[in-house]
C-alpha cells in the first residue's frame, strides 16, 4: 500500500540513531527504510519539514548564544517569537548539559547532530519520495474548515486536507504519522462527520499508538 507522510513521521525518521534505543524514531526509520509501495508527500508537508529543520538550527544557536554569553536571554532574542514551550524545554536541557563547554566544541557537536539529521531527511526527499502532491494553493478551504471544526490545529488541518485531496482517485493509502494529535479515536470521530460521508479516508498509521 502507498503512504502519505505527516511531518512528524519524517522528523522522527531523521532523529533515529542506532546508538540510541527510542521506539518511536526506530519505527519511523524502519518503516521508511523498508519502503513498501509509493511514498507521497504533500507540498505543505515539505514546507513544514524545511521550517522545522530551520527551527532546530535556531534552537542550537540559541543555546550556543547563551553559552557564549551567560546573560543572554532566550526570550529577548530575535528568533524567539517562533519558538514554543517545547522548544524552550529542549534548549534548557541542552544548555544545562553543555554550559561549561568550549563554544567551538559545542558548535561542532551541535552541527554534527544537525547535519546528520538534515542529511537523512534530504536523502528521504531525494531518494524515497515518489510523488509530490497537492500544491499549497490547491488546498480546499471548505474541506479544511470541516476538519478544523473537529478540533485539529491549523497545521494538522493543512496536512489532513492535503491527504484527503490526494486520496481522491487513488487506491487507499496509509496516512503515516508519529504524532499524538492524530489519535485513532479522533480520526474515527472525523469519519463520522456527515459532511465527509462520501469521502474515502486514508488508513491511519500512527506510530505513537502502535504496540
Amino acid at each position: 500500500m502507498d503512504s502519505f507522510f505527516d511531518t512528524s513521521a519524517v522528523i522522527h525518521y531523521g532523529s533515529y540513531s542506532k546508538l540510541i534505543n527510542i521506539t518511536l524514531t526506530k519505527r519511523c526509520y524502519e518503516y521508511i527504510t523498508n519502503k513498501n509501495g509509493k511514498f507521497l508527500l504533500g507540498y505543505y508537508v515539505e514546507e513544514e519539514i524545511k521550517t522545522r529543520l530551520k527551527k532546530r538550527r535556531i534552537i542550537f544557536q540559541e543555546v550556543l548564544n547563551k553559552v557564549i554569553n551567560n546573560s543572554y536571554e532566550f526570550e529577548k532574542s530575535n528568533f524567539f517569537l517562533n519558538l514554543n514551550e517545547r522548544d524552550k524545554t529542549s534548549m534548557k536541557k541542552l544548555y544545562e548539559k553543555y554550559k561549561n563547554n568550549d563554544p567551538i566544541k559545542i558548535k561542532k557537536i551541535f552541527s554534527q547532530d544537525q547535519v546528520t539529521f538534515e542529511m537523512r531527511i534530504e536523502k528521504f526527499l531525494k531518494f524515497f519520495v515518489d510523488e509530490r502532491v497537492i500544491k499549497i494553493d490547491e488546498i480546499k478551504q471548505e474541506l479544511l474548515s470541516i476538519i478544523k471544526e473537529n478540533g485539529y490545529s491549523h497545521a494538522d488541518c493543512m496536512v489532513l486536507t492535503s491527504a484527503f485531496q490526494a486520496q481522491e482517485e487513488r487506491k487507499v493509502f496509509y496516512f503515516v504519522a508519529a504524532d499524538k494529535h492524530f489519535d485513532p479515536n479522533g480520526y474515527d470521530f472525523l469519519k463520522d462527520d456527515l459532511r465527509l460521508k462520501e469521502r474515502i479516508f486514508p488508513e491511519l498509521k500512527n506510530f505513537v499508538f502502535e504496540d
Partner: protein
Amino acid sequence: MADVSERKTPQEIKQKILEALNSKPLNAQEISKSINSNWSTVKNYVDELIEEKKIKEIIATDKISYYQKITETYYNIPITKEQENLFKFLFNTIIQEYKKKNKLPKKTELAKDAVDVINELKLNLPTAWYIYGQIPIMIPDPTKEFSTTYVPENAEKIKKTITRLLDTYKEMNVREREQSHYVKYGNHLYQLKQELIWEISLMKNEKKVLNNFTEFYIKCPFSDFPQIFDLTERLYSTVNKLLIIGSLSKFKIESMLALESLWKFIAAYQLLESISKIPQYNKNEILQFNLGSAIETKRDCAEEAISNLESIYLSELPNKEFEILEDTKEVREIMSDWDGE
C-alpha cells in the same frame, strides 16, 4: 516666504542647495525651507544639479522624493567640508610620499596608511570597518587627483607619521598588510575570515577548513542580525555536508565564492554598525539613505551563491546511511522527543 532667487545668482542658489544636502538627504519641502525659497523656484536648480551629476534622487514614490548629494565617499555617506579637505590633504600627502620612492600605492595600502594616520593622530575623520578592514569613509582611490590648497595645522606631524608608517610596512605584501592591520586593531573576526578564505583556496586539509569555519562562525554577529545567522548557518552546514560526502575539495571554488559573497554581506553590516558609533551619524538615516539597498543587494548575492552550493550538494548526495558520532549521542538523546511542532 522671501524668495532667495531675488538676491542670489543661480550659481549661489545651487551652492546653497548643495550645502543644505551636506549632512543628509532632504525632500523638496526640506530643501525649500533650508534655503528659504518656494519649491517651484528651487525645482529648476535641483533638476540642473541632477543633470550635472552633483545630486541624485534616491527615493521616489508617488508622494515624496529625496535628494542626495553625490560625494567621493563610500555610498555617498556625508562628510563635512572640513573633513573632505583633510581627507584630500591626507591622501595626497601619502601618494606623494609613495611617489618619492617611485611607487604608486595600491588602494588597500592607501586605505590602511590613511586609517593608521587617522587613528594615531586622532584626526577628526570618519573611518569604519568594511570588506578588507577599517577604511576611510572617503574613497581612497590612488588614481584620483586629491591635490588641495588646504593645509591643516598639524600638517608636519601628519607628514612625519606617514614617512614613518611607510617605512614600517615597506616589506609587506597586501595580504600581510591586511593581516597586520587586523591584528593591530584587534579585530578577530577579520583575522579568522582571512585565514578561512586562505584555507579554502588551498584546500589541503578539509578538517582544518571546518575548524577555521567553526571559529569564524562563533565570532559572527548573529544575535543582532538574524539574516546573517540564517545565511552563515546554511553555508556552514553545506560545507560540512560536502565534507562528509567527500566532495568539498571538488567544489572548493563554489565554496569560496559563496564564502566571499557571504562575507561581503556581513561586512556591509559591519560598515553600518561601525558608522553608527560615530557621533555625526544616525543609524536609521544611514540605513535608509546610504546602506539599505547595498545591504539588500549583498544579501541577494550571498543567498544566490549559497543556494548554488546547496543545489550542488543535493545533486551529489548519495543514497547511503549517515550516522551520528559517539560524542553527539547526548545531543540526539535530548532532541529525540523534539518534533518541532
